[in-house]
């Protein structure tokens, strides 16, 4: 009797804590992504705040684009705040609190230096602020700027340490193990495809101007990426604003259409009809309306392109509410406003976000292709078209690579927003 009883008893006592740890480990790669982005931004902004790095170092010059710089500095502050996250738990832990403070100071320093053109470290060292703003003339004495670089490098290392402190990658091997298990097959497929491509092109001696080998594209990309990041950013801005206008209008009119069914019945056929037009055919006309050089002509294309999916998904989502949920609200004699905010909108979010995610890629397509029809010449579409026209195929392919990197980044940001707003949704629950 006794041994049996003990046998039965033991696992009950011993097993649950261990099982709990693995079963309830709901951590995902979110923190790791955030930490990597923060590290990247710490290093990039370090390059932005000193003209030696900004103009003489290839990596720094990639982010020289005047409209890109402030975005990176503000993004660093955003990443810092997200890492600081639950401030209550940080406060109980003095090392983590110190890390948060260091990161905050570093981001504020960067915002002052990059956005407001005021370099505090430079001012303390008695360096003329004007030196930080322009490419250094050849005759200037570089020594003070170089010692400024050394001193701020210390600050940068502290900030990197702070990110590592808040990240603690050493404690997250379980997460990585799971992530690798889940994503191993697509990674393997990607590597195999690249290797196959490389060897097939070698084997059949395909001319380089027809299809460059992946390794050649990678090498070219490594050389010209500073230019590509800058033109890619110019194009991305068109995509972004078109996305904001198109999806914003789509979601708003979708809400109206769902609220007033008569309105939706009148509007939907028209919207479907307009959507059937290959939107890109409108590009030359948009150029006439807004002027080819005006970014509005590109933004308009993207806005028209992204409007329809956002609108139709919003209508569908708002009407896809569970019948009982609505009866419940009726039993409370809830106002239309309450029903909209507390039931319809939350249950429409999955629909709206899937439309927004589709719209991110649509917007990059629209912004790039619209540049094929003329423009200022500082965009990615223009760059790809030109490179291809002069048979600089490796360059053109590098442009395509950067286009997809921007697209993936945009998609990633929208997905992160979705995850933050819809953490409750069935698709994000841990299996």
């Amino acid at each position, binding site marked *: 009797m006794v041994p049996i009883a003990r046998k039965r008893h033991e696992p009950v006592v011993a097993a649950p804590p261990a099982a709990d740890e693995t079963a309830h480990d709901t951590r995902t790669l979110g923190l790791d992504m955030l930490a990597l982005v923060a590290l990247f931004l710490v290093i990039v902004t370090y390059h932005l705040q000193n003209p030696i790095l900004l103009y003489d170092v290839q990596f720094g010059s990639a982010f020289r684009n005047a409209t890109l710089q402030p975005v990176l500095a503000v993004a660093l502050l955003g990443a810092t705040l997200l890492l600081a996250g639950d401030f209550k738990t940080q406060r109980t832990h003095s090392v983590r609190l110190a890390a948060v403070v260091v990161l905050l100071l570093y981001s504020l320093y960067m915002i002052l230096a990059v956005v407001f053109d005021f370099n505090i470290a430079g001012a303390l060292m008695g360096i003329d602020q004007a030196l930080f703003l322009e490419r250094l003339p050849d005759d200037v004495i570089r020594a003070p700027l170089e010692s400024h670089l050394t001193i701020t490098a210390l600050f940068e290392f502290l900030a990197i340490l702070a990110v590592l402190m808040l990240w603690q990658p050493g404690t997250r091997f379980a997460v990585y193990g799971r992530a690798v298990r889940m994503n191993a097959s697509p990674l393997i497929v990607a590597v195999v495809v690249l290797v196959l491509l490389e060897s097939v092109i070698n084997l059949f001696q395909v001319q380089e101007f027809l299809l460059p080998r992946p390794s050649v594209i990678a090498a070219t990309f490594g050389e010209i990426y500073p230019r590509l990041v800058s033109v890619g950013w110019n194009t991305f801005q068109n995509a972004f604003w078109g996305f904001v206008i198109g999806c914003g209008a789509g979601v708003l009119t979708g809400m109206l259409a769902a609220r007033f069914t008569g309105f939706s019945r009148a509007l939907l056929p028209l919207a479907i009809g307009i959507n059937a037009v290959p939107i890109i055919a409108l590009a030359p006309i948009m150029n006439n309306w807004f002027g080819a050089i005006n970014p509005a002509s590109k933004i308009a294309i993207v806005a028209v392109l992204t409007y329809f999916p956002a609108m139709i998904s919003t209508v569908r989502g708002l009407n896809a509410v*569970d019948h*009982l*949920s609505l*009866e*419940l*609200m*009726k*039993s*409370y*004699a*809830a*106002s239309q406003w*309450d029903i909209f905010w*507390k*039931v319809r909108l*939350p249950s429409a979010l999955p629909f709206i976000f899937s439309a927004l995610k589709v719209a991110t890629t649509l917007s990059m397509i629209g912004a790039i292709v619209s540049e094929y029809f003329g423009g200022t010449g500082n965009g990615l579409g223009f760059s790809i078209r030109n490179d291809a026209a002069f048979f600089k195929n490796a360059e053109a392919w590098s442009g395509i690579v950067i286009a997809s990197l921007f697209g993936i980044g945009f998609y990633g940001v929208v997905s992160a927003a979705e995850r933050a707003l*819809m953490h*409750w*949704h*069935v698709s994000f*629950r841990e299996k």
Partner: protein
Amino acid sequence: MANVISIKSLNKTFRGSDGAQVQALEDINLEIERGEFISLIGPSGCGKSTLLRMIADLIEPSSGSLTVNGKPAAQARKDRDYGFVFQSPTLYDWRTIIKNVELPLEIMKYSKDERERRASDMLRLVELSDFHHKYPWQLSGGMQQRVSIARALAFQPNILLMDEPFGALDEMTRERMNNELLRIWTAIPDMTVVFVTHSIAEAVYLSDRVVVLSPRPGRLAEIIDVPLPRPRGPETRDLDEYFHLTSRVRHSLRGGTLEMQKVKVID
């Protein structure tokens, strides 16, 4: 004693998908007293859920009169006189458990402190105090239904309308939930419960009176008093009187026609 719910010659006809009129309920007369526990039982499609939904003013009767707390049903709904528990818990996935219970209180514009106080009181009543910040999908079906009961009671209505609330639960859980419900009903003085079920055992175990509806069109077949002693517990199910009453309800249900028609009426 004043009647909480008063139903006089109530009729309901639905228009079927082929345009034909379908009589769901015919000439229902029912008086429900304050503090009573009443069960509505009948075969599928007899209109028992329809009757409950008309009391809740979720649908309108075709003719006849229906007053709740002495007012027309629509006014009672607007005054939030009743709480409704659906067949499925109907919790909102994007709200934590406590936020789900607070939902009606938010709509009724209670202050934040008051909302939190009442919601945690209610969660204590249904013995789910440890689950405030969990999400609905992290709870079992029985727990979810308890949350929906807590939500229905959060604003202290004096009528609780329940539409086959335990229909989806297994037999063991259902019996436990029945005891929970009786405990809650006893804890709140003068609360009237109208309970729709298709389980004879459940109806007899819980109720003061069992209202038996005949198959479509639903008519009142019989109203059976259940004089079983209270408080009731597992031992109640062993009483001779309990067996006697369940078989009486069963016979009464057979009194109509034996065939169970499949119909498209909401049930």
